[in-house]
């Protein structure tokens, strides 16, 4: 009886293993939580159209970089562009997939979304732990007509390696010399104060749960979860509300043509209506991938997303990459080869 059971179990396992090979393979990717909301929407539509799934794990830009370098996924997604050296050392290419905005979110009783105005110096002070209460003079100066409670500020930042952190701290560094000198900008920094949450999702959730807290997430997370966001003063000194228009205004300044390896950080852009914390997400792919078939599928998906995914991106307040840049990007894909031949467009 025991032998029969064991044999049955073994048979089940073997048939599992064999059936797995017969199903269509999904495209695997990992990385940025910034792009995750729009990837999820695209993946859903792509699966309905072509039957091929996109298995994307939003583990943070740092995770995406590591996993693609370790070749455990087909592509990585990062909001922090890699330098020329890093790209060359790991045999990777990068190209921008989407642009969007990062917003500060907060949880103060009675203060509605958009009712709070902040700027880079005050945000830097808060995240450095120098401004500790909501009714601090610096915040009051920006918000003369808002009743701010005398409650302590709970800072919420990312616990994992995040491109969102990179862009946010880049913006803080541009507005505050103190921040730039002492803390700097990267996917993970030495946060002097605050609670760490995992992923933009985690930050959104923690801010939602904690009274008097402040955090930073990609705009879609704030919009979808009805979180209160703050308006910011941009480089031109104007108070800007986060929206598709202000993100697009910032993105329109992006000069992709002249960016070597598409390396371009778009925070603090000039322009009266530009949202100050705009960011892009890059996809990382190996120039000579071990699994050419998987890479081919991935490139087909990205091509589809550039051409057919614009409406869905817009609905989530992301800014699509302009068509002229898409042409430039797809031309660069000829550098992704297998056996000497470019993978994209081969079939």
């Amino acid at each position, binding site marked *: 009886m025991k032998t029969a059971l064991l044999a049955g179990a073994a048979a089940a396992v073997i048939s599992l293993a064999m059936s797995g090979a017969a199903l269509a393979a999904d495209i695997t990717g990992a990385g940025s939580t910034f792009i995750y909301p729009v990837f999820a929407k695209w993946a859903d539509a792509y699966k309905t159209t072509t039957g091929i799934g996109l298995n994307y794990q939003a583990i943070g830009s740092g995770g995406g970089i590591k996993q693609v370098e370790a070749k455990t996924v087909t592509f990585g997604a990062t909001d922090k562009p890699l330098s020329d050296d890093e790209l060359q050392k790991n045999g990777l290419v990068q190209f921008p997939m989407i642009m969007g905005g990062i917003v500060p979110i907060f949880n103060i009783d009675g203060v509605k979304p958009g009712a709070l105005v902040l700027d880079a110096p005050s945000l830097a002070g808060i995240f450095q732990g120098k401004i500790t209460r909501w009714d601090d003079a610096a915040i009051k100066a920006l918000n003369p007509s808002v009743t701010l409670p005398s409650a302590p500020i709970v800072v919420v930042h990312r616990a994992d390696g995040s491109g969102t952190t990179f862009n946010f701290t880049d913006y803080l560094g541009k507005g505050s010399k103190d921040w730039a000198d002492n803390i700097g900008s990267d996917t993970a920094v030495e946060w002097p104060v605050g609670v760490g949450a*995992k992923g933009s999702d985690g930050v959104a959730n923690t801010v939602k*749960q904690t009274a008097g807290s402040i955090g930073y997430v990609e705009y879609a997370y704030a919009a979808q979860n009805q979180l209160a966001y703050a308006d910011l003063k941009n480089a031109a000194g104007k108070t800007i509300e986060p929206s598709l228009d202000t993100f697009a205004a910032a993105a329109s300044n992006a000069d992709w043509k002249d960016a070597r390896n598409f390396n371009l950080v778009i925070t603090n852009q000039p322009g009266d209506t530009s949202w100050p914390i705009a960011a892009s997400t890059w996809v990382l792919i190996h120039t000579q991938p071990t699994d050419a078939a998987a890479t081919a599928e991935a490139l087909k998906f990205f091509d589809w997303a550039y051409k057919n995914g614009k409406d869905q991106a817009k609905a989530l307040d992301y800014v699509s990459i302009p068509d002229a840049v898409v042409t430039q990007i797809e031309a660069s894909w000829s550098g992704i080869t297998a056996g000497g031949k470019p993978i994209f467009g081969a079939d």
Partner: protein
Amino acid sequence: MAVTTGETFDSSDGASGNQARRVVVQDRIFYYLTLASAVFVVVMLIGVMVSLVVGAWPALEKFGPSFIWTQRWSPVKEIFGALSPIYGTIITSVIAMIIGIPVSFGIAIFLTEICPDAIRRPIGVAIELLAGIPSIIYGLWGFFYLAPFMAAHIQGVWKFSLFGWNFALSLGGIPLIGGLFANSASGLNLFTAAVILAIMVLPFITSITRDVFQTVPTLLRESAYGMGMTTWEVVRHIVIPYCRVGLVGGIMLGLGRALGETMAVTFVIGNSHAISASLFAPATTISATIANEFSEATTGVYTSSLILLGLVLSIITFAVLGLAKWLLVRGDIK
């Protein structure tokens, strides 16, 4: 009892010589299979330690023993120090023990000495079911219920008026030790994590304590009662001293479990590498740091430092568990 007889040897019959040889071979195969399996377990543990050491080597080379007492954790500058995770791991576990041990002893005393027979089994079973709940559930519960409760009711300021006087009390206001409880608006901190850990180790320590209490010879107990000692005196002066060694073993087993706990702690510890004097400040533990940061450590030194953290945790846990095991064997509890 049904015994299937195998082939019987009859050495007087030449043909059964083959049978005998076949059986010897079968026996030997079986023996080697079992030996290989037993060796496999040992090899696995050695494998774990070796892979940890190999993985941690770059970080060991770069930082040396100063890794243990460096507080700075900077992925950007590639300077890593384990002080903050080690501090968090030890403090949460110690506080969890401080809270958990008295409660576990209390439950064990209740179950062995004064519990009416009818409800003894159900309560015992209930406590053991608590042991089966996966740690991620504790983490969930802690994040959604305990942390907000702590933030709203324990960590804040209690304002009330009595006889026309207004009081504003807070734990942070207690003289001398108030600094340990500095006000904080977030329930995601060391203390909340310690409370969750305490709830988690409760069933382990309780069931071991109960087993240990039951090894006290009835004769000893009965003699003590016969001399007129109260129940509490019997427990305090007879039972506990008799089981001392086993009790400590049980405690260390619980401690070992608390030190290595990941999921329950990650949800509520606050994930901050800063060390603060206050128990109400966010912190991190070794396992929470690894869980949060491993999948994205991009540089060799970063990954290696995380593995080195894992190595430190293994050494601490294995030492504690080894000690616990040794004590339990000495206390006659296997």
